[in-house]
């Protein structure tokens, strides 16, 4: 039985995984999300992927990465290379109401399911997409600043440097 496409409530949350290279540290040494992380990915059809909180936790979003192949390879992703942040659904849907010049962003449920499940392409009932042009810089700045860390990066820039060194070994 396939999973139905459902309406996502404004009050729910969305979880996004982000590669460690898209984490920076501000002048107070707080981990911040780079604005660059919020652009669309043209390779995947001009939208932004995330997981809906009804069917996934932040930690599950990260764990699932370990069952995904790297693009074009038969090698699994390393979940340790990624962290998870969240936004409220309403934050995305209301952007064009708060700032008139922003293009509307649609949040849609987009479950991934194949039977049998192919190795490296795991099924994901929580999968959702945010459709809409995200090239506006104010949009990206606003959303980067409002991101909440769920699976947190190392606390300081020095700790992140050591973490990256360990990943390379």
């Amino acid at each position, binding site marked *: 039985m396939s999973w139905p496409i459902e309406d996502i409530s404004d009050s729910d949350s969305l979880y996004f*995984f*982000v*590669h460690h*290279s*898209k984490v*920076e540290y*501000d*002048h107070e040494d707080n981990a*911040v999300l*780079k*604005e*660059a*992380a919020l*652009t*669309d*990915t*043209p*390779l*995947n059809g001009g939208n932004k992927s995330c997981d809906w909180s009804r069917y996934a936790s932040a930690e599950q979003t990260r764990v699932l990465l370990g069952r995904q192949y*790297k*693009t*074009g390879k038969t090698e699994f*992703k*390393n979940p340790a*290379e*990624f962290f998870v942040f969240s936004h409220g659904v309403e934050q995305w849907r209301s952007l064009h109401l708060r700032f008139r010049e922003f293009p509307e962003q649609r949040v849609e449920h987009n479950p991934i399911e194949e039977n049998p499940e192919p190795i490296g392409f795991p099924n994901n009932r929580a999968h959702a997409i945010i459709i809409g042009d995200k*090239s*506006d*810089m*104010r949009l990206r*700045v*606003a959303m980067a*600043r409002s991101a909440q860390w769920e699976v947190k990066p190392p606390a300081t820039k020095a700790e992140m440097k050591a973490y990256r060194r360990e990943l390379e070994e």
Partner: protein
Amino acid sequence: MTVLQQIVKSSKEYRGSVRANSFKAGEAAEPYSIIVGGSTKDWVNRNHVVEIPVVSRTLGHSVFVSTYVISSDFELQLTESIDGLKRLKNDWDGDDALAPIVSNLDDAKQFLLRIHAEVKRMGLNLPMPELNPCNDGSLDVVWRQPENFLLLNFREPEQGLVHYYFDNYDTKLARQSALELLGVIPRDFKFYLQAIAE
């Protein structure tokens, strides 16, 4: 900053007199004028240690200035960073990001060198920004200063534009527009540069 540092930072062909005692000049140890000749391709660069061929007016033949360490040189750091970004391939972030578009990187380098010189003329120093490749192949350039924030985005090489966003960490008071890459730098943008300069 010494005269020699200024010459090296300008990275342009230079012919002019400098006092030999403004740096250790090897054979040209006495304080007489020497000519720094040739173009930057004649300069020997080994990990930010640069040897510059000079011609002594008195001796009339080429000598080498003793090695000179350049610290935190903007252009060298920028070149190394941009070259590193040019080596990225699609999916460099493990999340299907496009490789940075090379012409976006070249535009960014050219523009950053221009505004670096502009800020220098103000008597200030432009800090090295973050160079953040985006998922869509464009490039973000970011200064995250304590009071002010400036973001440039290079995404449309064929249009010759650089998009910018400036605020003081309040998006309601933000300014956002686009500049011509090779055009005159407008007064308001100079103000933003001044705000993030050191």
